[in-house]
């Protein structure tokens, strides 16, 4: 995701994967194009446009956080840290894998965790959160198509979720609550929280094979 490669995986990836289908289905939303421009050409103009759009959203995202140890004064620090990372890492952005918004969300999520860890740790963790998302570099021709379809699906169905499912997703993604914390806060059994999340995921078709997953819950 962040433009890193591990050679061990190269023999696993399919040689023909990078060609063909993808070219006919380029990602062309404004933000993704700007982000690619920043990555390729180090364009400050494009970066300024990204900043104007994303900084206020990121601030809002930061202010929604209810993590232990988080306070509103950290919000602009987070915005700043995320935007600097965006500049630094833009070259590794792969528009075939994610939209600019999704990519920036993952940068923000990782920065937020790292900031919290830095604040709370007495011992040093030799990892940054983005290391957890270090993926072997393999591409399949259907990736972009599949991704775009699923993005559209998530977008459309997120807006139509029943309020009780929407509420929990917001708690988890924006406030940063675990399922257990959400259940405590809402006065609901943990099983209810998990099943609401699962229903929401099914509606958004995020779980590919729920029948296979069911036995795991």
């Amino acid at each position, binding site marked *: 995701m962040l433009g890193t490669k591990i050679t061990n995986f190269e023999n696993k990836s399919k040689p023909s994967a990078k060609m063909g289908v993808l070219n006919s289905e380029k990602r062309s939303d404004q933000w993704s194009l700007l982000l690619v421009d920043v990555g390729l050409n180090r364009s400050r103009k494009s970066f300024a446009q990204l900043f104007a759009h994303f900084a206020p959203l990121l601030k809002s995202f930061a202010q929604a956080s209810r993590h232990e140890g988080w306070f509103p004064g950290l919000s602009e620090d987070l915005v700043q840290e995320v935007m600097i990372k965006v500049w630094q890492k833009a070259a590794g952005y792969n528009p075939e894998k994610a939209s600019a918004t999704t990519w920036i969300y993952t940068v923000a999520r990782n920065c937020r965790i790292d900031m919290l860890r830095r604040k709370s740790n007495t011992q040093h963790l030799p990892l940054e959160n983005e290391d957890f998302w270090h*993926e072997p570099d393999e591409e399949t021709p259907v990736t972009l198509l599949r991704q775009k379809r699923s993005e559209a699906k998530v977008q459309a169905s997120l807006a139509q979720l029943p309020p009780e499912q929407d509420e929990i*997703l917001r708690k988890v993604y924006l406030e940063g609550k675990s399922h257990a914390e959400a259940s405590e806060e809402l006065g609901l059994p943990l099983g209810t929280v998990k099943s609401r999340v699962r229903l929401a995921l099914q509606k958004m078709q995020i779980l590919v094979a729920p029948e296979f997953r069911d036995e795991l819950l």
Partner: protein
Amino acid sequence: MSIPKHHPDPAMLVEFSAGTLGTAQSICVAAHLHFCEHCRNEVLRLDQIGSQLLSQSEPESVDSNLFDSVMRKIDELPEEEEIKFEKEDLRFPLPVAKLFNKAEVVPEWKKMSSSVDVAQLVTGQSDYEVSLHKICAGGKTPKHSHSGKEYTVVLEGSFSDESSVYSEGDFILRKEGDEHQPMGAQNGECICLSALESPIKLSSPFGFLMKPWLRLNPM
């Protein structure tokens, strides 16, 4: 490489994607994702929830100097040189490999029993003890029960217990009270990543009596 058959439950992937999963569990999930394309794709889709919620946020105006301040910091950034791990050295998934001392590509093993070696990893938290276990080929471990949660991810080789055979990438959760007797595969040693809930977190008043088989010296 075989395809993993045992996966984290979706709730864990949701917390991983939202960034609310604890450090130790995140390391285990990350190690599993290294092997499991299925779950990687699921996480990519889950990230879109965060992405959508971010893009639908009510924009909050930022300090008018913030952009200039960011640009100033960008100009002060050192030349972009990234210290990358030597790729050939990555015997284990990156989030695991990075937990070793940089110079020390192979972890320092200590004998735990005649058939099991252990190497503890430093993860900057004390809720879970994170370590690597190496079971020698055909090695039998003592039958033991768990007094807290334990997450295990197979990194190399395979092992089995009463209920199944576990191979590379498989993600196993043992809960309090589970009892099992893992056995290394006959055809080679098996290396697993494990995160064991620290004894201090145990809710049972008699937890200390059930001396966890895998307990190490607390850091």
